[in-house]
């Protein structure tokens, strides 16, 4: 019962444009599509079944864009896609990080010294992901653009150029904001950071 790929892409493109035009409904519809796609990709990677759809794919978000929008995608639509996908990616990763921490704690609970074995790199990084996620809510109270940028850079893994493109700002602005956000987050990520 699925539509043919071009139809699918056309629908997505329309949603992205409606979203850009400020449509709340469009975002509500886009979100699950992108979230599920990204989640599925992430899971596939975790199970070691990662298939890159193109030669230069670097991140899951790029991969998702290629899969959902095709390679002929209009640059404007691609920007919108990244803007929405970055937020979705944030939640995919936070979910995964939570899951991993929970597993780790579960293992610790079950068998004290065995805990070492289950700590893999991803688990080690999970607290960072969660801490950044939580700190972003606070950052949003000060400057939402910085939040978007951290989502694009840190969660979606976009380059400086791509980030500038999506945010429609110059590259130096991104460099500057990114520096500021890192310093600010560093202050937040200290374990005793004020809440």
């Amino acid at each position, binding site marked *: 019962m699925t539509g043919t790929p071009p139809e699918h892409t056309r629908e997505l493109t329309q949603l992205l444009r409606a979203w850009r035009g400020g449509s709340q409904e469009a975002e509500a519809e886009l979100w699950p599509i992108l979230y599920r796609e990204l989640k599925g990709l992430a899971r596939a990677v975790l199970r070691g079944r990662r298939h890159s759809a193109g030669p230069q794919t670097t991140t899951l978000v790029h991969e998702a864009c290629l899969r959902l929008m095709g390679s002929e995608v209009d640059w404007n639509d691609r920007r919108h896609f990244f803007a929405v996908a970055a937020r979705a990616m944030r939640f995919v990763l936070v979910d995964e990080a939570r899951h991993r921490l929970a597993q780790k704690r579960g293992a610790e609970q079950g068998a004290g010294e065995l805990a070492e074995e289950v700590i893999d790199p991803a688990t080690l990084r999970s*607290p960072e992901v969660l801490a950044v996620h939580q700190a972003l809510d606070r*950052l949003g109270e000060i400057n939402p653009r910085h939040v978007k940028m951290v989502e694009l850079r840190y969660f979606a893994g976009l380059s400086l150029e791509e980030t500038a493109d999506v945010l429609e700002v110059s590259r130096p602005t991104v460099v500057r904001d990114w520096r500021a956000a890192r310093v600010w987050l560093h202050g937040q990520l*200290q374990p005793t950071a004020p809440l």
Partner: protein
Amino acid sequence: MREPALQDPHPWTPPELHRIDRLVLEAAALEAAHRDSFLARQAASEKRLVEEVQRRLTAAQNLPENFLASPASLFIGDLTLEGAPGESLPFNNPPDLNFPGSSGEARYALKERLGSGGMASVYRAFDRQLDRHVALKLFRAGDASIPIRLLTEARAQARIRHDHVLEIYETGSFQGRPFITMRLVVGATLAEKATELSLEQKIRLLEQTARGLHAAHRQGLLHRDVKPSNILVETSPEGDLKAWVSDFGIATELQGARAASDLFGTPHYMAPERFAATPTTLDRRSDVFSFGVTLYQLLSGRLPFAGEDLVEIRRNLLHSPSPSLENTAPPIPADLRAIVLKCLAKNPQERYPTARAVALDLQRFLDGEIVEAHTASLAYRLTRFAQRHRSAVAVAGTLAVLLVLALMVAAGLGLRAVQAQAREEQRRAQAEELIRFMVLDLRQRLEPLGRLEVLDAVGQKALDYFAAVPEERLTETELGRRSTALYQIGEVYLQQGSLAKAVPPLLESLELSQRLADRAPHQTDRLFGLGQSHFWVGFAHWEAGNGSAARPHFEAYLDLSRRLVDAEPGNNGFLLELAYAESNLAALLERAGEIQAARRRYANVLGIMADLVTREPTNSEWKFELAAAHNSLGEALRALGELEAATQHFRQELGLRQELASLDPAHRPWEDFLGTSHQHLGTLLLYRGRWEEAREHLSAGFEIFTRLTAEDPTNAIWQYKEVWSRLRLGELLWAQEERDDALALWQLAADLTAPWVNQQPPQEGWQRTSGVVALHLSQGEEDPSPGLVKAIGKLRAHIRVFPDDRRARTWLGTALLRLAEETNPPELNEALLILESLAENSSDFHHLAPWARALLRAHRLERARPVLERLWAVGYRDRELEALSQEKGLPVPLSEQ
């Protein structure tokens, strides 16, 4: 005790913090060289704030190059790579956290230790700045995951503002050890306090606890460690007690709480699903369970699921029934026991859905009201009892069941009513609630068991109750409630098949609602009530097979629904009523043979449902109804011989069913309807000669129903559908010359049908089906006659009970015709007679095809010709009939495929 000098890291108010954050962000955007001059430009009054900004900027000078440099998205990808991640792990090796505070003096003075747990100790402390005593929870150092959990805990609890949730003030750190300050409660934990409390005090405190929990749940937070030692009891100077839920130490946002991998909590209090092997998403009902353990322990002084070690506790939690609370000293009231047991249900679905519901029941208990859990758990136990003793219940059990129910009703409607005479309105509302529960919930439980007759006593008691309340003392609202209760009771009688009993309460309901509507003809709720009453009276007649008596009521219902929609065009509920009303009348017309009129009504239904689905595209119930509308219209079109149009509607129906089933693959009813939809489409395609497609859909339906019945062999409806899926798939195979397979399918259908045939009262569907199965099976016999005689006997017996069943008469005509083809006897005349009466004015191929065949057998070729032409024109295909027609020199269908 020596006072440790606690450094205070951040004595800022929220606006100050906000300002600092903003300044950090702005300063950090600048090149390092320009930051000082930027900060120097800030107002002198902000000196303290600027110092903090400076401190943070300085701390960040040591920011590792790779801090947040690699995207988080790669950390997933890294799993497939070899090598270690970067060093940007602030939590792995926490830096020294003991930095000097700005004010110089330590803010908190630690006093005595109030308690200690695995992760932290709690002290009484004095907050010098705010001049108050607080509770200070100081964590042990060294656990790398503490900071993040600390964040979570404090954020979680601080978000909730509630009378019974302990307030969090602040967080900080001392010598590398994180701490939290919170409201200092003068008192003790519930665990310590339990033995000195009266039953009422315990219940009041737990009722407050439940409300506090609910407040947390509403914020999306699970407590996950509900137990007596996490509930603080404050004693006011006046001696009043107040409960505080504390220690959301392991509270995790509801979303993402995973059971199997996240075993925190104290095992004795943990909900069974948190031990489950397959990760299930936890919800508030897990806290309800822990709350139930707490309640149990407080009432009985012991744990419900004890054990030496985790393994034993887990086994008891998962598999042991909740131990009885019946023989305790002092005794625990039955209503309270029911509340505890409902909290402790193994299956989350059977627990209270919310902590608030528990709180309400506890409150009701305190007020001497009817407790919801009591009725529910009784119903549940009854169902379980009936399931365990199905055969015994059928004979001896009825009496016991009735006794229990009578007791329940007496308790619910009699004794409590006396207690609560001062609150008559509340009593009535609850009586109605109880009746609603019995009628809807209890019925749902008893229906699959075929035990509806046990509701009889309940209904009678309820009617007695209403009869005993003098009408002049009832307000109009109460009359409305009474009318509702009456038609619900009538509905139960209808379900039981006791039509005679159903009619009086239904008519009384109609009369009541008519009176109410006359008094206020423009009040939509009155019109609505009147419409419902009309519907039920009409439905009773309809069930009795008396269409002409049902018709005026269905028409009144339709008229009222139209008025409701006119009054409130934006009210989707009324629009839905209108769709139902159109649909009911259509069904009535259809049964009366007025297919064209029915078709127009069904088209109206389709229009309304399509409109509703456009209004709310995500409403799956309406999509479900839309699918049903396609089906009804498709059936009507089929009967009118418009097979292509019918096929289109069946296809649309199937599309919607597939969509619904994919939304929730675990929802059996949707799968059931998907199977039925395949079945309908497949059958129609079968008769249009589209073998390949027909096979695909009939197989899909067959596959679904065999799966469903394997899952639940007690479900009569699934069994019935499986039988028909076997029959139809067999017909296809037979037509495709795969006769052995067809016969095997039919034989199994016969085996499945046998146990259902002799049920009392007789079930219309099963009786007819058993005749049809016999008819099919006779085709495989060398001499089909005995089988046909058997089929004819069954169908005749069935028609004696259900004279209006046109489908049964069609099958009887077919069976007689087949017998006549074998033996050439008088049966042919009877077949002709029956089939002619059915085919008259009909365009349904189910009627026309056997009629044509009978005419051919009787050599009435000129009479047969137009019927055959009609059949071929609409696209009907039937190889046997085509062969017969050709043999007699009559037309055959043009081969289009």
